[in-house]
């Protein structure tokens, strides 16, 4: 019923101001691109703006855009470049400068792979967290998501700091173990995709 377009057709549709295709493209890539930008800017509003800027450019210039790679790779690269430009601008404005320690950012090939798989990595991490024992998961959430210090967690749960420490250590250890086995999968995927494109 709904026609699926390939990358070139999507751009063509957007060039003819097809909002539906534009929205679809945005829904598919927004979260991934936001996370990529956030890795550079560490700033919610700036990253949101970066993603918006990239898509505004697509909307405005899709008829003249020439893309030699996949649309997805193009978007990642555009978001990284726009994020770096945003950082430069921010660094110029003094009052914000102290919040940033992004002096030595260089965009490498490794990053390019990273941008492609970052969303997959996060989803795998999410799945790994689900496999942790309940108490362990709870303490990890309190520590990471609610930004509680170990003493504060111990007080809230009425357990010793030592126990909190053990849970956190166990959580990170397990996440590392589960991650490395999944990382292998990702590497296999990269090689596979590489072979396909030969």
């Amino acid at each position, binding site marked *: 019923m709904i026609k699926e377009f390939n990358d070139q057709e999507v751009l063509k549709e957007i060039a003819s101001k097809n909002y539906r295709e534009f929205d679809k493209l945005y829904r598919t890539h927004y979260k991934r691109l936001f996370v990529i930008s956030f890795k550079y800017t560490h700033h919610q509003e700036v990253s*949101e703006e970066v993603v918006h800027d990239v898509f505004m450019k697509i909307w405005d210039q899709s008829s003249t855009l020439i893309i030699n790679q996949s649309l997805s790779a193009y978007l990642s690269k555009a978001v990284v470049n726009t994020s770096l430009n945003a950082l430069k601008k921010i660094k110029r404005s003094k009052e914000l400068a102290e919040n940033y320690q992004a002096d030595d950012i260089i965009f490498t090939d490794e990053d390019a792979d990273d941008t492609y798989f970052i969303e997959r990595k996060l989803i795998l991490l999410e799945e790994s967290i689900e496999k942790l024992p309940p108490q362990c998961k709870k303490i990890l959430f309190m520590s990471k998501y609610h930004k509680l210090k170990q003493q504060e967690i111990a007080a809230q749960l009425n357990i010793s700091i030592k126990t909190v420490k053990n849970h*956190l250590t166990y959580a990170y250890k397990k996440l590392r173990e589960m991650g490395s086995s999944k990382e292998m999968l990702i590497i296999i995927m990269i090689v596979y995709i590489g072979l396909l494109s030969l």
Partner: protein
Amino acid sequence: MSDFNINEEESFYISLIIQEREGTISPEDAERLLEWRSLTPENNALYNDISKIESNLSLLEKYQHLNTEKSLASLHKKLQHYEAENKPKHQTLKLSNWLAIAASLFLVLSAIFYIQHSLDTVTLKTAAFETKQFILPDQSRVTLNNNTLITYSKNNFKDERRLNLINGECFLDVVHNPTQPFSIHYKKLSITDIGTSFNVEVLKNKVNVAVNSGEVKLSIKDQPTKAFVKAGEAAYYQIEEKTIKKTVIKNKNYKAYADQNIYFKNTSLSEVVKTLESVYHQKIVLKNTDLNARKFTGEFKKQRLNDIILVIAETLNLKVTHEEGKICFK
């Protein structure tokens, strides 16, 4: 050293790394950690891995709280703003003087014509991402689904309540007035109400009319064909064939885009997902094919999509994840 000891040592340093990232590490421990890292490449790799997991956890938290629809809506606003500001600039003309004069004369004349025309013609419009409700001069209400365009003549509307549906779908709630019939037209098809609320949807080769209350009359220009459609009934006009076929309303949720009231009664989950997608313009995926046939019963009145998703997940004991802008049931 036994295995146990290696694990003990590893745990101890992982705990120090966590403290370092938290900012609660003591200067002595920080020194100790640094020393340990430089001892072997394995230690340093462990340090990097744990740090990476920690920063990915922060990213994951951001990721989970992202609201694609909210972000998209704000992007649309920016785009509208941008287009309104930038359109005139594209038209900068490089013309010789006399041509410029002729052009401006033409502009003035066409502006006068345009103003006269636009003063009379009212346009109701929605873009791809929105539904909007308008109140007509006679207090009748019309809700436009996405990508819909309706026009009417302001001056004539007092005498003849006539709308032209150019494209899309709308739901009409008409104030009854026997001396002034209300009608909506699409190409050769006219739908005349006899005090009612009804839905009109233009598709590729047909126009669907579904009546919620009262009765409407369908007629085709230059054709004797007529049909009366009552509450609960539907009819479709086949544009090519110029025929009208009557039927009953099968999809209870046909006007959900207008009132956000959705009913499911023993509805298969695949149907539920299809309905929600069309009302909220959001992609929803069933990860297991055996979920398709699961049945859901429930009623939602003007609720946010996220709340509806949660209720369905709770009821059918499903898991919800968000992946690449899609909502997934597992």
